């Protein structure tokens, strides 16, 4: 069933974009979190992806010698790292988290950037669904050969 590897690739893309969307939602929800467990304000999280290879070398060699081509296994989340850019400093002496100078460190989350990333993740999700529907339509058309 060669078509189902195409489904698996699109499925990994959908999972990756959903995780990216979850990270973006986490960043937006914590845009004003000035205190976390470690005492610092909330640091913006960033997720990085990497290509998931189709398998080990033996299966790749077997596919290549049989005439097939291994397109890969989709995408995988490489890591979820924290953005190390500096915190925003705001003068707000009335805040309980202000230091002796009245300066409060706010999280380094820029809502506009997160909204743009959210649109990008949402469009990438839709693109993956379109690719999956195209693969499904190809499989259905192949079944019509026998009709």
């Amino acid at each position, binding site marked *: *069933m060669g*078509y*189902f590897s195409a*489904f698996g690739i*699109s*499925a990994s893309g*959908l*999972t990756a974009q*959903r995780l990216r969307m979850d990270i973006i939602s986490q960043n937006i929800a914590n845009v004003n979190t000035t205190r976390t467990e470690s005492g610092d304000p909330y640091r913006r999280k960033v997720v990085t992806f990497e290509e998931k290879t189709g398998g080990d070398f033996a299966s790749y060699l077997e596919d290549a010698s049989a005439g097939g081509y291994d397109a890969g296994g989709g995408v995988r989340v490489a890591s979820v790292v924290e953005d190390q850019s500096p915190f925003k400093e705001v003068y707000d002496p009335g805040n309980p988290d202000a230091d002796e100078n009245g300066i409060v460190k706010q999280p380094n989350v820029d809502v506009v950037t997160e909204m743009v990333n959210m649109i990008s993740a949402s469009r990438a999700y839709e693109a993956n*669904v379109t690719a*999956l529907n195209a693969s*499904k339509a190809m*499989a*259905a058309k192949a*079944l019509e050969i*026998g*009709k």
Partner: protein
Amino acid sequence: MAVNGISAVTQMVASLPATGTAGAADGADFGQILANALEEINTQQLNSAKMTDDFVTGKTDSIHEVMIAAEEASISLQLAMEVRNKVLDAYQEIMRMSL
């Protein structure tokens, strides 16, 4: 001469059992292939039902995995139906041959 014609027919009859056994051997392999394919289709159907149950009870929240498993099971079943139709057509074609 009529005797030559009969000898030709008896030669044909003698060769029939050989093809009959060959046909039976191919049928055993084909039956195994069919059984394996049906087993795989059944596994996919069960997997799809299990994933739907997991999603409904809340054990997993990836809805696209559920939908993809359902689509795979549906396509496998359609493929099995098409193959069955082809096999039935071939069988009926052979049975239609007047002897």
